[in-house]
């Protein structure tokens, strides 16, 4: 036996490194790697070859910048260039362009669905939304605002990172199906003034002014404001309301939408002061919550935050970060109902939340092989109120005060064992004043078996904590449940990524999501609704994507996803869960920079509605012509959305009489932008 081992050792003796690795690795496999250096072969590449090397990097997957292929998740990145090229108007339109993500618009809010899961009434709460690292999910409903109620004008976005899979091991609550992380444009990027005006279907008009600059002393600022208004379709027909007293189902001029937002950042060396505010008022035409389509029904949502963030890299390579923030969320809805004896009364529903938060983190790479990160987070409500009352005659149904306090701490690390094998792992502890503690881990192995190929085997757990609405709201028709536990998910995923050459890339994913103890609304014996931890579900999926990119802005991308979802109790397919989705996007220069085209095809198969009807499938084609630098500083963009005029439908939530809600047909937008 000894002789054989010796022979084997001898056959490797050509390299002393290998022999050392062989001997040492039995006892201390980690030590072998320290001697290696990163990519000395890069020096041997020609300039042409260097120019073809991919340097795509992602931050939000591990809270430090790393190559996409090294990240312990399936990652997609959307850049500002694509947002312009495809004429996307809202974050929702960006999100639905990305493999594995979909959206549902109920003519008021837009909800994010991920990997075949978008239960109606979830408010997009199972995805964590970050703006420059700041948590955007609100404290009352956990909602993510992605439509016209979105926090940012999408033209102030530099890039959006989509991190699929459970992220609670780093981010705590809401990072259930994934994390969407937005980076805003810097002052240096804006460099001057941008003035933008746009006009589109339904008298939709919008204006934006953005200022930005970086001074030679390092001071940098960006300030942007947008004003938006839309009349919406003048007539919307809802067959469910087709009675004489409801104008034969026609909601007339009932879909108005007004929003404004301000966002700014000011940086000096390691410090950034950042803040923003959005206010949106929406007329709700759908007769939701038992109202009538032509009666008053509108919602107002205000969301804002201000924060001071710190980021510093020490002389010996420690990356330190911290932030202190103050957030507000205000929601108000007015809904008019008929009085039995004639006339009308108005019901006023509202939520008010203010909270502050602290975060600190540190990250360091040891021996060029071992990356270690840790951090803590603390969040506490200042105000957390919900109220519901009738005005004249005044009757108070709900007047609830709640509080929330969350503490979280995480450690995360990755270890480059050999040049082709990396192990990642981490866990996070969270404590909520409501239900107590939860610990969520993630592990993974990242293998690079061949040049240009990366395989990731990943496992992770995540949770969404019950929110203030589910825990504490109390009225005639809804009773909060203070004993709710978090809903949980366990995900196992295999990701494969391959770069064919400088232009083509392919990615594939196979995953299984086991969702446990979903927070679900149920009727109690007295006829009031309450939330319980009831219902498990499983989603299995396959995702395939091919992408080609060339200099000068040419892009080709196609993806296919198949998601098979199942309610564990009934064995039935989940509602609003498209089995098959297909996406294709192409951007082509026509006359160089002067004129280019962006074409997008989005297909989604038939989905079940909440009442087990079907939506029918969806075919969306969007086209944008973009002209840059026709005159210095001038940019013109013309878009047609839903070119095929597909009046597709999405499932309606329980607040709607409509089981299916028809979406807008063909619309257009013309946008003029001038920078000076």
């Amino acid at each position, binding site marked *: *036996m000894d002789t*054989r*081992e010796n022979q*084997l*050792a001898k*056959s*490797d003796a050509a*390299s002393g490194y*290998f022999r050392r*690795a*062989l001997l040492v*690795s*039995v006892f201390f496999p980690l030590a072998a790697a320290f001697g290696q*250096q*990163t*990519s*000395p*072969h*890069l*020096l041997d*590449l020609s*300039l*042409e070859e*260097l*120019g*073809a*090397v*991919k*340097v*795509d*990097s992602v931050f939000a997957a591990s809270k430090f910048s*790393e*190559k*996409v*292929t*090294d990240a312990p998740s399936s990652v997609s990145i959307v850049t500002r260039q694509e947002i312009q090229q495809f004429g996307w108007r809202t974050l929702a339109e960006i999100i639905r362009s990305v493999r594995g993500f979909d959206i549902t618009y109920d003519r008021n809010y837009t909800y994010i669905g991920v990997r075949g899961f978008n239960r109606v009434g979830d408010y997009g709460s199972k995805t964590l939304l970050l703006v420059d690292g700041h948590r955007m999910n609100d404290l009352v409903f956990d909602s993510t605002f992605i439509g016209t109620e979105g926090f940012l004008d999408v033209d102030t976005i530099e890039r959006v990172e989509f991190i699929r899979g459970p992220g609670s091991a780093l981010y705590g609550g809401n990072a259930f199906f994934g994390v969407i992380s937005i980076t805003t444009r810097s002052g*240096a990027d804006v*460099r001057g003034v941008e003035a933008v005006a746009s006009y589109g279907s339904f008298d939709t008009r919008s204006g934006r002014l953005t200022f930005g600059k970086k001074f*030679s*002393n390092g001071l940098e600022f960006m300030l942007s404001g947008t004003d938006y208004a839309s009349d919406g379709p003048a007539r919307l027909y809802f067959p469910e309301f087709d009675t004489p007293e409801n104008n034969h189902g026609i909601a007339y001029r009932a879909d108005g939408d007004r929003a404004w937002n301000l966002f700014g950042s000011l940086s000096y060396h390691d410090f950034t002061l950042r803040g923003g505010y959005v206010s949106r008022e929406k007329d709700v035409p759908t007769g939701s919550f038992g109202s009538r389509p032509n009666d008053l029904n509108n919602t107002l949502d205000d969301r804002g935050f201000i924060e001071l963030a710190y980021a510093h*890299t020490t*002389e010996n390579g420690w990356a330190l970060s911290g932030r202190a923030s103050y957030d507000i969320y205000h929601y108000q809805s007015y809904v008019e109902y008929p009085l039995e004896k004639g006339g009308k009364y108005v019901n006023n529903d509202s939520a008010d939340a203010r909270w502050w938060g602290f975060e600190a983190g540190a990250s360091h790479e040891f021996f060029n092989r071992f990356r270690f990160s840790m951090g803590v987070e603390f969040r506490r409500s200042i105000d957390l109120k919900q109220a519901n009352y009738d005005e004249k005659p005044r009757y108070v149904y709900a007047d609830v005060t709640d509080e929330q306090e969350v503490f979280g701490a995480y450690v995360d690390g990755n270890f480059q064992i*050999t*040049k*082709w*094998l990396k192990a990642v792992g981490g866990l996070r502890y969270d404590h909520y004043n409501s239900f107590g503690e939860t610990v969520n881990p993630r592990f993974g192995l990242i293998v*690079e*078996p*061949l*040049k*240009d*190929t*990366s395989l990731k085997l990943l496992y992770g757990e995540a949770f969404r904590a019950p929110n203030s609405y589910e825990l504490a709201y109390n009225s005639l028709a809804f009773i909060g449940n203070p004993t709710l536990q978090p809903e949980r998910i366990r995900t196992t995923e295999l990701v494969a990524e391959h*770069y064919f050459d*400088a232009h083509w890339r392919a990615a594939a994913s196979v995953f299984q999501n086991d969702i446990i103890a979903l927070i679900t609304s149920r009727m109690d014996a007295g006829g009031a609704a309450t939330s319980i931890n009831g219902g498990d579900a499983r989603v299995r999926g396959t995702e395939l994507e091919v992408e080609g*990119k*060339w*200099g000068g*802005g040419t*892009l080709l991308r196609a993806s296919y996803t198949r998601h098979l979802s199942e309610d564990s109790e009934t064995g039935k397919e989940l509602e609003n869960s498209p089995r098959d989705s297909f996406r294709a996007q192409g951007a082509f220069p026509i006359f160089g920079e002067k004129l280019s085209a962006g074409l997008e095809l989005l297909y989604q198969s038939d989905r079940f509605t909440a009442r087990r009807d079907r939506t029918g499938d969806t075919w969306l084609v969007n086209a944008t012509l973009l002209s840059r630098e026709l005159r210095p500083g001038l940019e013109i963009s013309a878009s047609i959305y839903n070119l095929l005029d597909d009046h597709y439908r999405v499932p309606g939530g329980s607040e709607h009489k409509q089981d299916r809600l028809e979406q807008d047909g063909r619309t257009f937008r013309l946008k003029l932008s001038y920078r000076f």
Partner: protein
Amino acid sequence: MRAFYRTHILTALALFTGSSAARAESEASVKAAYLFNFAKLVEWPSSAFSSGKAPLVIGVMGREAVGDELARACASATAGGHPVEVRRVSMSEVRDCHLVYVPESERGDGAIAAAQGAPVLVVGEGENFARRGGALAFVKDSGTLKFDANPAAAARNGLTVSAKLLRVARTVVPK
């Protein structure tokens, strides 16, 4: 027997380790490789070196990872017969370098001004750096890293950018 299999597996692993090469790289290491190439493909006047054996000094401003990558990669490298020396430098030391790399976090305009008239190649970041008088500038392009060149700016500092470098540049700023 177990020990035998274990050894087998480890040998296989060790062989694999040697044979693989990375496909997507960190930005810092690609920049380091570019900088080394720049040092080889730009011609300095002989007066810029005290002797034929004097080092070619590459200065990196700020605390970017590019500096570490470059120092590691160039440990025993030469450019134009000169040993390459990598230093971290501040604004006041720009003129002590042959090539200075100014990351985004540092003052690009300041470095261009500081190097004016001295045989220093100033390499910076972004679309506008070369237009503002930097000799070379890194730019991102479809997930890859390219560079813009301003040979006239280099010439004002007495440097000649080789045709090979200009051929590969994404954009060459006209005079």
